[in-house]
């Protein structure tokens, strides 16, 4: 604990760096997987190409990707861009399948009715498909978030791993407390990210709480029908 207090500044700055480096792949990966997931759900050919590609990308060992990206991107080996791009690739690889499932989970009846009352494909996507895919999208995004936050620590081997630095430094100095602080800090950061996602989800999808808590789903009794009309109906 003494070590932590003496190095609080270092731990905090590493935590901020960790948050910054992992937030970008999560956001970009989410945004990129929306159109790709939509295509994979809509067209069988796109599905046949995108989903296996995602699975293959995810099998590339992370350290291999970190050191080979400079060759592809023309960046320096210590450039944080390499790490951000690599983690974005992993995020998309996981998220595309999840996004395809999310769009597949939207009720066909609701989509049919949305079309029948005069939604264009564009308005139908934004006002019906995207929000109703929301719960499954969120579930997958939470997996991506946790996996990105933990995977980033590997990038300490190429100098941009945020809190992963504490693992390498603590291991080299044979100093377990530093490693332990790193593990706990990463756990807390992952939990914080998850909490933010859950809260944002609650705010953006208020209708979902009806499904989650069946006790609140009690339909209003028909007596709420207009009294004058209700009496006769």
């Amino acid at each position, binding site marked *: 604990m003494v070590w932590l207090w003496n190095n609080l500044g270092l731990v905090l700055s590493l935590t901020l760096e960790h948050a910054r480096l992992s937030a970008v792949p999560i956001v970009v990966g989410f945004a990129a997987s929306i159109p790709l997931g939509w295509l994979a759900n809509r067209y069988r050919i796109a599905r046949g190409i995108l989903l296996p590609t995602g699975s293959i990308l995810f099998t590339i060992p992370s350290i291999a990707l970190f050191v080979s990206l400079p060759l592809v991107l023309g960046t320096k080996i210590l450039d944080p861009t390499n790490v951000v791009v690599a983690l974005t690739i992993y995020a998309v690889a996981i998220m595309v399948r999840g996004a395809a499932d999310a769009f597949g989970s939207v*009720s066909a009846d609701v989509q049919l009715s949305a079309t029948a009352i005069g939604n264009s494909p564009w308005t139908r996507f934004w006002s019906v498909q995207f*929000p109703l895919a929301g719960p499954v999208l969120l579930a997958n995004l939470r997996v991506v978030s946790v996996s990105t936050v933990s995977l980033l620590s590997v990038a300490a081997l190429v100098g941009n791993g945020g809190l992963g630095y504490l693992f390498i430094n603590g291991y080299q100095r044979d100093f377990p407390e530093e490693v332990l602080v790193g593990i706990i800090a990463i756990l807390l950061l992952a939990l914080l990210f998850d909490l933010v996602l859950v809260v944002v989800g609650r705010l953006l999808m208020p209708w979902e709480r009806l499904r989650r808590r069946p006790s609140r789903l009690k*339909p*209003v009794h028909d007596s709420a029908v207009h009294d004058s*009309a209700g009496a006769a109906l």
Partner: protein
Amino acid sequence: MIEFRSVAKRFPDGTIAVDDFSLVIPSRKTTVLVGSSGSGKTTLLRMINRMVDPSSGVIEIDGESILDRNPVALRRSIGYVMQNSGLLPHFKVVDNVATVPVLNGVPRKVARAQALELLDTVGLSRDLANRYPAELSGGQQQRVGVARGLAANPNILLMDEPFGAVDPIVRAELQQETIRLQRDLDKTVVFVTHDIDEAFLLGDQVVILEKGAKIAQLGTPGEILANPANEFVASFIGADRGKRRLIVDANVAPRGDDRVLVDAGGYPVGLIAAPDGRLATGSPSPKSRSISNKTDQAGDA
């Protein structure tokens, strides 16, 4: 007026849903397409707002071919009510009703105010406006569906088995409500059902369909009841089982002027007034079908 001329629909898998179908659907009347599953009735309905395009033939609305119209604009000009209401689960009731006007560019505030008035029209309390569809009963959801169908004030209202999924008591309420609305609003209603009693109750014109959307008989409910065109129709309306042929039950003593009617199977089906032994007659017209006075007030609210 909606006119089908030699319309056919073959689906890519080879099924012929509709084969050489022609029909005139008069304005400001309710036309009911009735048939069992596979009769193509829903396909016909969906052709009117171009959810399904015919493989051949012409469909015109007021003399203008709909195949020349933009499908999205066409759909926004036609009300659509479907089974299980088809409401958007993530929109509050008021926003569900306001959907089409908002798509048409009406400011959201104005559209919501109109939506509240429409809730009155379909006999729902404004207290429900801020609820989500999942918080309503099946009957209430269906009323919201009707309100949404009416929101852009369309001349044509398409109803695709709208009351198929609610229980018989609620269905009877919704049927009476539909009759009242139609009397007040005078829309051209095209209604699809597999329930012949519902068809006879709601239809000014009833079209009985066989497989492949072949018209077995077209007429008013009275005409079809009096003269079933063939055995298929007789069977479909229950005439072959004696369900439509009623006799006064001689075994039951009259109660006041009322005598008990039974069908050919001997099952009691209703009463008829028979003062001094003479059966009552009348000339009911579709626009004055029995609706209680109390229901009328809802329209003024």
